[in-house]
């Protein structure tokens, strides 16, 4: 048996022995574990599952063991992912610290910063939010105006952030601030600070789906120690761009993470439009459904090909923008198609006679509209592809 086969066998045995049965079911969004000072667990199993995974370093299996990770190789990571999928194991921890800040700290952080933050992220002890967008700097992120003034031993931060996801629950924020007003990209720095700092105020924003996952965050004379600057002063734009790549990867995965709760398009179509033989009776919708599931498959093949090319060292750049663009647009098309097939059943807002599933469908459809806006709009992704992949000029 090869070392990797051995690892697979051990991993499978461990997961089977340690992943509670209730953690092997599809996960509704409100049962996600986000960790942090005010962590909430949907049931004792979700707490136990997190603790067991933390102990193995498997909340961040690819990070070095020194920072609370599992120290797994790329091949071992793949095996772990496959074995978790095979058993239907839930992700034990959702965290912007893991998916966005962590990779950036590993690359740009000082040893002190890594020691301070990474193990706590790995253990789910701290919940992060992202301070990027501002009312005047959405798609044009580099136009951000929040100032950080050098006050000798600390920075004094003033400004307003918007679309800060879960800022009302977050413990810390990674934040883009302007440290030089004479230039655009080259005047931005990357700061970390505690959300309990004096002068930080958050207000939730109610969305069209009825949810309030986003906040406005007001920063008034917030004092941030100088040791909380990541990378060099005025060098934040490079970090921000890299972090956005991680974010786009995460968002294009969104379609998958809600799978299991939202039924497949062809299943809905057959339920509402199926003839006796199970054939979708409306020829126009049948063609649209076929196109959709075929595009899903082509997209799946493309992600697999990208992974294989990256292993073989023949990958071309720009795929993260392509995945973000296509993944989110495809997710929006999915919900629009489901709505067309399910008729008024998918348009209930609350209460009887609508099922939980139908109500979730409606809210998730509305939520999906944000996928192609957050993390860089589809139009921005098209610009990125045109410029960086195709070499078209400004």
């Amino acid at each position: 048996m090869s070392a990797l086969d051995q690892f697979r066998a051990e991993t499978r045995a461990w997961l089977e022995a340690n992943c509670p049965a209730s953690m092997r079911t599809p996960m509704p969004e409100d049962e996600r574990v986000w960790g942090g000072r005010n962590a909430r667990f949907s049931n004792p199993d979700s707490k136990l599952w997190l603790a067991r995974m933390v102990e193995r370093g498997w909340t961040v299996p690819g990070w070095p063991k020194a920072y609370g990770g599992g120290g797994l190789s790329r091949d071992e990571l793949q095996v772990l992912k496959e074995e978790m999928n095979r058993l239907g194991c839930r992700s034990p921890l959702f965290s912007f610290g893991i998916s966005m800040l962590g990779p950036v700290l590993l690359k740009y952080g000082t040893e002190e910063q890594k020691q301070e933050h990474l193990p706590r992220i790995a253990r789910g002890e701290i919940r992060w939010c992202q301070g990027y967008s501002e009312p005047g700097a959405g798609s044009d992120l580099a136009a951000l105006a929040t100032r950080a003034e050098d006050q000798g031993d600390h920075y004094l931060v003033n400004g307003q952030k918007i679309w800060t996801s879960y800022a009302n629950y977050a413990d810390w924020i990674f934040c883009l601030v302007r440290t030089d007003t004479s230039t655009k990209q080259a005047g931005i720095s990357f700061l970390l600070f505690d959300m309990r700092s004096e002068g930080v105020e958050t207000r939730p924003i109610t969305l069209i789906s009825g949810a309030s996952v986003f906040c406005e965050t007001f920063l008034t004379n917030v004092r941030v120690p100088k040791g909380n600057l990541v990378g060099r002063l005025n060098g934040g734009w490079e970090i921000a761009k890299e972090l956005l790549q991680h974010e786009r990867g995460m968002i294009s995965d969104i379609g998958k993470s809600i799978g299991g709760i939202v039924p497949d398009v062809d299943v809905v179509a057959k339920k509402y439009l199926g003839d006796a033989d199970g054939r979708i009776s409306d020829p126009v919708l049948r063609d649209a459904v076929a196109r959709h599931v075929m595009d899903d498959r082509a997209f799946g093949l493309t992600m697999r090909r990208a992974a294989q090319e990256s292993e073989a060292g023949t990958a071309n750049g720009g795929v993260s923008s392509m995945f973000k663009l296509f993944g989110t647009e495809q997710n929006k098309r999915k919900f629009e198609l489901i709505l067309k097939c399910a008729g008024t059943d998918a348009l209930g807002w609350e209460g009887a006679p609508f099922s939980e599933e139908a109500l979730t469908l409606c809210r998730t459809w509305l939520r999906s509209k944000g996928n192609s806006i957050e993390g860089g709009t589809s139009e921005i992704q098209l610009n990125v592809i045109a410029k960086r992949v195709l070499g078209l000029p400004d």
Partner: protein
Amino acid sequence: MNLTLNEEQTMLKNGAHEFFKERMPVKALRELRDKDVPDGFDRALWGEMAGLGWAGILIPEQFGGADFGYKGMGQVLEEAGRCLAASPLFSSAVLAAPLLLKAGTDEHKQALLPTLASGELLIALAHDESPRHAPTRIATRVEQSADGLVLNGAKTFVVDGHVADRFIVVARSSGERDARDGLTLLLVDAKAPGVSVTRMRMVDSRNAAAVRFDKVALGADALLGKIGEGHAPLAAVLDGARAVLAAEMLGNASEAFERTLAYLKLRKQFGAVIGSFQALKHRAAHMFCELELTRSAVLGALDALDSRHADSAALCSLAKAKACDTLELVSAEAVQMHGGIGMTDAEEIGFFLKRARVAQQWLGDASFHRDRYATLKGF
């Protein structure tokens, strides 16, 4: 599923790229058209292609082939698609050879496959009877007579039909319209009494023919496989051909896209290169994404054929549907983005558009394959 190329396939692709670029650029197709060459292709170049082993890529070594598989074949045709190269490669190597291999007797294989692999013999598949691809809609009839078989019927869009030495004809020996049972494959000499061939001049300047069979008398050795059991081998070979045609279309679309991209960086209007305009940038980026998805679908289908994947029929339909949609988009945008020059015969981009629509229809268009995919998936 492996969606990358191994060393052998990469070498095959690079070799084909150089060959088509050097020996059969789009200019060569223009010359065949302008000189009205009766064959519609260059026999000397075809000999060179066969010499490189391409005519025998899907033929086992024991019958004189190279046995490189569908993924190998796809690489050669993708490169041919970049240059719109006219040759009997597809009809002989992608349709006829695998069909003989699947349905023919040992005698058929030993007698015919080595000469197909060497390029000396040309065989065309006479299948469709209407302007739209319909694999089982066969009215051409074969019937028993006192001294053998008699064939009657008419075929359209027989690719390379006007240069073929023989035809593999799909005929109905029994069954109702659209029935799978009762389809019979026959090997018919192009010079047999009762066979008449009319070259079809298609918009893409490539080669096809209308073929009539009028009381054509055939011996028992004309039968490929058992009478009435032609559907299974035919269906398998059509799927392989759809995947390879999708690869050719991917080559066409990739080349048309790259030429257009180069033009966007060159052409100036309003004092700026037109590639700086966001309206064009976004459409170019959109095409890039569709091309990437198409490439994955094509590689998926080719790999599935070689590895005998259980879902290869659906993957072949996916590849052909995606290639049809993407090529329709890219070929039309290519002309639009070239502006007035794109409408001229002097500029080559129009050749890509013309070939695109023919390839889209051949072996089933996007709607055909979406319908088929839905049926295969049970909805």
